[in-house]
């Protein structure tokens, strides 16, 4: 699981080798088809179980050692672009699935990036 580092915006730490899942949610912003990259590689989009019988598009990656960049782009494929996309980490604890908000983007600024430090 990602842990936010106080005083460092959009900066997370996680044990190296942990598997992290991030999903996106379109709030009145058009089709939910985001693009993700981690550590210089494109990540494949898949439907992720977010609990309560719901799925959201997201990606899964294994945390590498050191500081790596995780980035995302929201499509805002409506005319005019509108709404907001939210990015959340899917946290699975036994049978429980919860979502932790990582950030959001709006039409004027559809890209977002985080630093994930593998420790």
């Amino acid at each position, binding site marked *: 699981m990602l842990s936010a580092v*106080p005083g460092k*915006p959009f900066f997370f730490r996680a044990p190296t080798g942990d598997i992290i899942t991030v999903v996106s949610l379109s709030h009145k912003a058009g089709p*939910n088809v985001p693009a993700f990259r981690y550590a*210089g590689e494109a990540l494949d989009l898949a439907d992720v179980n977010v609990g309560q019988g719901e799925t959201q598009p997201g990606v899964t990656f294994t945390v590498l050692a050191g500081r790596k960049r995780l980035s995302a782009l929201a*499509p805002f494929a409506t005319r*005019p672009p509108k709404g907001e996309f939210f990015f959340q980490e899917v946290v699975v604890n036994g049978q429980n699935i919860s979502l932790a908000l990582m*950030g959001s983007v709006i039409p004027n600024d559809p*890209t977002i990036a985080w630093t994930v430090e593998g420790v």
Partner: protein
Amino acid sequence: MTSLRTLAIGFVAASLWPGISHAAGDPAAEVALEVKRIATAIRNIRANPSLDQDDLLASQIAFHSRGQRFFLVYAILRDRWGVVVTPAEVAAASPPDLSAVEQARTDVQAGASASASGSSSLISKGSGPSYFAAAVENGALVKSASATTTTFQGNLIGIFDALSSQGYAADYEDATVTRFLRRFSFSFTLRNTNPDASAEEAATEDSGLTDTIRRQVQQFDQRLEEYSVRAVVGRHRRDPRDVQNLTAIQKLMATSGQQLLEELDEALADLASEEYDQWVTDSVRELKSVPLPFLEGTLIQRLNLLCDLANQKVPNFQDHAVSAYQAYAAFSSARSTVLDEIERRPLFAVEYVNLREPLQSDRSTYRFIAEGQRGRWDLTVNAAYTRYNNRPEGGGSMFRDFQIGAGADRPLGNPDLRGQSKSPLANAVLSVAFLYERLAESATVVFGDRTLSAPPGHLYLGQLRVTLPMGTGGVKMPLSVSFSNRTELIEEKQVRANIGFTFNFDAVAPALRQ
């Protein structure tokens, strides 16, 4: 000095947006506007002290993560062309007009149908407003007697959307029922003058709340000229969630989208470092304590230091910054192409119109609407059948008329300027339409307070219309001239002028959601 600066900005714009520079904004103005937005956000954070104030301030200036495009343009302007935004330019920056794109649409009809006593649309369009729209129109097209009418049109689910304030948990994927209901739009048209004014005057002698409500309902009933329901039928090919459209968007994200992320990685990944963390910490400390009149200047100073850091940490930072910005422009352009393709897909709709006239049986019109785009022309075909709801006195036929028509709408001006507020002519729309009506022997019309038999036969109508946007608030003014061989009542050639004002809430909704 000023001309050199203007030249530099023009050269930057041409370099950053090869082939589409005329459609892009002024990069220095965009940067000034964003500095102003960030400074305003910082002022608001400082005005409301909280335990997480430092984190909130840090998130506003974390340009490795957010505002990446803004920072890259700032760095290119400063380091490559020596253009630095001044606090005075920041103070003068004003936001773009978000309504311009909606203003440029050609596929939405906000007014009444051609059968109303006040209308400016000979042909019914397939799409209704996403939220709601209103129109005041003067002059009949098919009828002999003209009047002024007010039409309200809307989408029930869209109105609930506009009124709701759901949290971010509500996502875009509608329930099946909601998605189905989005296909439906409704309208009702009221006469601006009450045809039964004498009854209205007599009724004003009543008193009390119940009487007042009853009187208002009665007045509404007397003024209601027509109401309609329209539904998109078959596969809704213009819905971005249609399988074909989703596939196109997925392809866009996998190609241009990934290319953009890759270029941003190249330009900014190496910036994430201990020095960057220290820059954020120092910037938060300064922005938190600087006297507010000097906030913009301090922010610009911190941005300059970050540019220096990026040049130091990222090999060939300037080249990567330009590549990333060009990738952003390429993504925006590719997305625009996908959305153009979606708007061009054919659309089919059916419409039911109930026309009410005093002294006569109500009439029902069943209309089929087909719509598509060819080049810059939005093409619409209508076929309609009208019958009386009750058999006319004397036992005539229920059938009243049959109509078939076609129309074409085209935005004027340069296509690359469409949807831009600086180009009002590009948002004006030229329309031509033709309507044929076959009136049955049993057709009657109301003229004054008398019901008259309409001469059976053929009606041919042509219309030339220009719809002008009035400012940026979603108001448009349709001006039209129509030509016909006769009206329903009078067998003489007619030339008529029609004018209206329409308001579409879709145009201002994005601004209200900011």
